[in-house]
């Protein structure tokens, strides 16, 4: 299973961040969420936390999403030393998406009102 992201429909409401932190920590704090939304001019970019990596890559590259150039560091899913997201704000412990259990029932997908996030088979 994976979570499919449709960049054309994300509105930047960040309800996914809210429910992710609420479901995992019992309080609301986007900085403790395993999904974050980067708000751009033309599109918003939800990015789901992947595995932790020890080293920062210092990537200066860009990639195309829906025809718009985006900083690669923004769309990168890794929790890494050079990024402020996907870390417990107090302890710095890295965070990673766990699909909200087994069988997968990601709450961000449930709470995504514009249906930008959908759960699909591999």
């Amino acid at each position, binding site marked *: 299973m994976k979570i499919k992201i449709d960049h054309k429909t994300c509105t930047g409401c960040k309800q996914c961040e809210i429910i992710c932190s609420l479901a995992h920590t019992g309080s609301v704090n*986007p900085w403790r969420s395993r999904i974050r939304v980067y708000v751009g001019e033309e599109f918003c970019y939800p990015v789901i936390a992947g595995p932790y990596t020890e080293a920062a890559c210092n990537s200066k590259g860009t990639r195309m999403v829906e025809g718009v150039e985006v900083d690669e560091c923004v769309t990168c899913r890794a929790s890494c030393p050079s990024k402020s997201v996907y870390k417990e704000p107090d302890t710095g412990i890295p965070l990673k998406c766990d699909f909200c259990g087994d069988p997968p029932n990601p709450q961000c997908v449930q709470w995504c009102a514009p249906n930008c996030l959908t759960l699909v088979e591999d």
Partner: protein
Amino acid sequence: MFGWQGKILRIDLSRGTWRTEALPTYLMQEYIGGRGMSDRILFDEIDPRIDALSPENKLIFSTGPLTGSGAPSASRFMVSAKSPLSNCVSSPCCGGYFGSNLKYSGYDLLIFEGKSPEPVYVTILNDRVEILPALHLWGKESYETEKMIREDMKARFNLDNWALNSMGIANIGPAGENMVRFACIMSDGGRAAGRSGLGAVMGSKNLKAVAALGTGQVNIADVEGFRKAVMSFYMEARDSGDFRKRRRYGTWGLPGRANASKSQAAFNFKDGYFEKFVKYEDPEVIIDLIRVRDEACFSCPFGCSKRSRVKNDPEYPLTAKGPEHETMALLGANCGLGDMEDICRANYLCNELGMDTITTGAMISCAMELFEEGHLPEKDIGYPLEFGNTNMFNLLKQIAHRQGIGDLMAEGGIAFASHYGHPELFMGIKGMGIPAWHPQAFDALGLQYATCNTGGSHTKATMPFYEGRKDPAFFVEFTKKDQDYLATADSGILCWIIYHGPEWGDKMAEWLNYVTGTNYTKATLDPLGERIWNLEKLFNMRAGVEKDSLPPRITTEPRVKNRVVPLDKLLPEYYEMRGWDKDGVPTKEKLEELKLEKEGEGVI
């Protein structure tokens, strides 16, 4: 603590110092948050008779217990102060990401006092508060200001792209700096705490911007109950056609609706119908023309606002938020401007300059009528200015920079129209421009505008679109109940656009109970709203605000549906329902019932 953070951040700009205070329990219990708390603090701490642009005025940014909690459409923050435009106590609100960031920083309220000797901006990163010089930002337009602040903060606090992107910035443009009396406070690239000129108050304090980045949390009392309730709210909303329409069109469906019901303010309220908007009656046309993307405020599943751009015009390269229906009506139809791209340009300019599109539109349409009637000579403006003339773009810049005739117009509609001998041609209430819907189309609307505690505003009571229910008694009661209910919604804070109409009071109570663990019902919330409304009224009476009235065009010239607003008849009924006397003064009994006897001393 659940819901609230329990802390006030108080910044003394005169001394350049700040401190935190505990949020008093009675404020939480009796005034909830947002507008209620701010009103109470302003009532207690400032003399209502002061000049709104003097250092004695206080500027309060506030959140409510629901802000940032994840309750649907609870992102807003209120800005409160005495208004330099209407002299009323006023609380415009604004969506976007600033409110939640202030809340996650750990504060319910942010109070600015005094006046900084030099231009400054304030950064709030949780408990790290800094007051920084802003000379390099002074004179910059809104979008550029936000960009430069992000660059400053990147260097100063070593923030990465994600942190810079998450923060919220409230700022003023040149209009606020120059103390234009209808300047607004801008946020997140085009959102605004727009009405009543609080941008000028911010400018008078030499405060260019406030940037907040909070990494704290909001605690929820009943997590499981809350999750279930929000989820079922979503399921319900997803199935409703209204929800889909709101997401797809936002307020862009309203020009068509306003034309159809003959309630489209046009040509300085001389008409209720605008021929040139016929082509926009299908909102898909507007979408094809200017939309870039749908944009939601923080934690709002509806996402009704639109980001727009004038295509292929290098002079307007950036996207702007809106134009919303109010802007289309006031800067468009009311100024005779019928091209949506032109309206988009005017909206863009107002956003960048930091001016309220509604009162600005009312000012310009007033100038246009004065010009056409021959009261305003062309040599005073420097160019012709009949209805529909795009010379108005120049005028927008002149007002914001107080150049030429703009200097006089920046003082507000009453001063401007009186200067040319025709104060009756400014379509405003207590100095504030009347919003989009023509009151002659709906009696209740005239009553709502006239009795609004901040001036001519459409956000403190909602337009009752109830077909078939036309008897005045219903409208009077609706107006009172909705004003009271919205006072609590503004204190929660819930977005009034989504939760409009007093029947939403139950939902408000439900969210409050899940989030804060209190035991509210609609029946216990309503009196809190009524108290807030009466407290505002007492403030305004102390400030010497003029009596409730409408411009003579609305009450004596039948322009729409051959009707006028019978305000003489409606006002006494409304006052009676409020428990006020025939002059609109709260009675002793009413104030005793609301436990406001002491507050009423000396004015009743």
